[in-house]
């Protein structure tokens, strides 16, 4: 369990929050620029002064103004990945990796052998074995970020902080790093705070989500719960949609399709070559879902889900509404026009068919 109480007031900016986050997995801190994401992360690291508050990671208290506890950054067992390249330019990749490890070893009196194992594991985990002798200015942007991540996790920190680690990279490099980050999430036990303003990174990587807006927490919870909250214009926008966890139930080799089963139905989608039984996440955007009061016939849309209307809320544009359907335990969003609601006389509690035009596999 991670407990953060942060109160920072500057002339043009305030950050006030008191949140408890799970002690494992990736927690995404999401919000527009200027919402205080980076300041939050820096306060957790002790790089930004948090005049009043509490920073507790599991059993360990890094700051508690009530008890007069404040550890300086260098005494907090954390790993920090900065937005832009942060490799020490006068040191080679190996020396960069060892810089933190050597010092972490001293303070934690951890066995040398164990530390070497951690170093080897992080080198392998991020695939940087071939870069060890290079200097930072001989690496590409993506390679530099991978080394920076390896350097942070090699110290086996209690908490890994990542400040938009992909923001300084172009789209191709970003795609190159995604699989490494997904591996981190799956293979490491340490909790991570991941600052981002990209909905794609949230849906692909995060387990838990905190939405910040103007220095306040707008929403927080599991990713699928927060993403389907319609009251949440920060997340919503054009990309509003449901995130559903399921697993591959069947593969249709003849038509190159695979079926994702989840509680509440199943969805056929393009076969991505994943084996039956593999856990996946799919994203259904609200704009790709239409509703029908009877089972649709003679339609090219292959995916239909049965659900009951849970709520109908006005959307950003006056012509539209956002309908939340309950399909089993999962929620599916549909963005439709007000006129359609009126003509079909849709009501909360009513049972309807949702036609899903397209689905994206996110992880």
């Amino acid at each position, binding site marked *: 369990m991670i407990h953060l109480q942060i109160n920072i007031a500057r002339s043009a900016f305030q950050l006030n929050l008191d949140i408890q986050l799970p002690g494992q997995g990736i927690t995404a801190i999401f919000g527009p620029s200027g919402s205080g994401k980076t300041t939050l992360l820096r306060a957790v690291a002790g790089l930004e002064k948090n005049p009043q508050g509490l920073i507790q990671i599991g059993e360990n208290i890094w700051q508690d103004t009530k008890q007069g506890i404040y550890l300086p950054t*260098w005494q907090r*067992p*954390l790993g920090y990945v900065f937005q832009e390249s942060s490799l020490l330019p006068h040191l080679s990749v190996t020396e960069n990796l060892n*810089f933190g490890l050597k010092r972490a070893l001293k303070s934690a009196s951890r066995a040398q052998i164990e530390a070497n194992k951690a170093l080897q594991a992080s080198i392998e985990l991020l695939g940087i074995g071939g870069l060890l002798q290079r200097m930072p200015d001989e690496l590409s942007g993506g390679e530099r970020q991978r080394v920076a991540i390896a350097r942070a996790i090699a110290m086996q920190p209690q908490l890994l902080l990542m400040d938009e680690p992909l923001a300084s990279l172009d789209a191709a490099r970003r795609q190159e790093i995604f699989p490494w980050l997904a591996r981190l999430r799956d293979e490491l036990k340490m909790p991570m705070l991941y600052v981002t303003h990209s909905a794609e990174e949230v849906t692909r990587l995060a387990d838990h989500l905190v939405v910040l807006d103007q220095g306040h927490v707008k929403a927080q919870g599991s990713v699928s719960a927060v993403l389907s909250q319609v009251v949440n214009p920060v997340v919503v926008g054009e990309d509003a949609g449901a995130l559903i966890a399921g697993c591959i139930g069947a593969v249709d080799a003849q038509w190159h399709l695979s079926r994702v089963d989840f509680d509440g139905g199943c969805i056929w989608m393009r076969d991505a070559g994943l084996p039956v039984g593999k856990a996946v996440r799919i994203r259904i955007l609200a704009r790709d879902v239409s509703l029908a009061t009877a089972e649709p016939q003679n339609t090219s849309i292959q995916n239909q889900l049965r659900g009951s209307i849970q709520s109908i809320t006005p959307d950003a544009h006056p012509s539209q509404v956002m309908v939340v359907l309950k399909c089993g335990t999962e929620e599916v969003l549909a963005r439709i026009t007000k006129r359609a609601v009126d003509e079909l006389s849709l009501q909360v509690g009513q049972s309807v068919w949702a036609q899903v035009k397209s689905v994206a596999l996110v992880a």
Partner: protein
Amino acid sequence: MNLTPDSWQAIQLTFELATLTTLLLLVLATPLAWWLSQTQSAWRAPIHAMVTLPLVLPPSVLGFYLLIVMGPQGPLGQLTQSMGWGVLSFTFSGLLIGSILFSLPFAVQPLQHAFDAIGSRPMEVAATLRASPLDAFFSVALPLAKPGMVTAAILSFAHTVGEFGVVLMIGGNIPGQTRVVSTEIYGHVEAMEYAQAHLLAAGMLVFSFVVLLALALMNRRQRQVM
């Protein structure tokens, strides 16, 4: 035409003075420059102005005050006398103190620029990698400021070799003690020994040019690396 033994002695003394000045200046100026580049204290501006003063003051003014402070009646003079060291004016030690003060801005400014150029990020990175502030200073800030240190050393050395006014004020012209190349040239000219003066003056000219050329070449390479 050869140099007289006196001239050789002056050359040797000059290099001793410049070497010692440079070494002591690096030790003194590095923490001072670091403080100036990091602090947000209200004292920053006045201290910065103080350090820069020798750049604009006539050397005779600096020398005059040093003479008074180090003299038998001055506070430093009384201190050194009570410690049994005698009076520092017109000695090599006194000259060394004067040289350090006179060249202080030439050491502090390149170092301060180098520290400023590093910015706060590498120090933050070092802190997230468990380095204490002192550790980070030696393992990150100093290595990254190396070009600034080299520039500071070269400028301090060359500037000390070239000083004249301060030497004349507080050092006098004692062979083997305070007579350096610049005062030796002055002495030759006074005595109408133009040939001797020529030799030393030309030597100084070549030396200064070579130093500045080396500095320029080094800066260019530095920029290419960056």
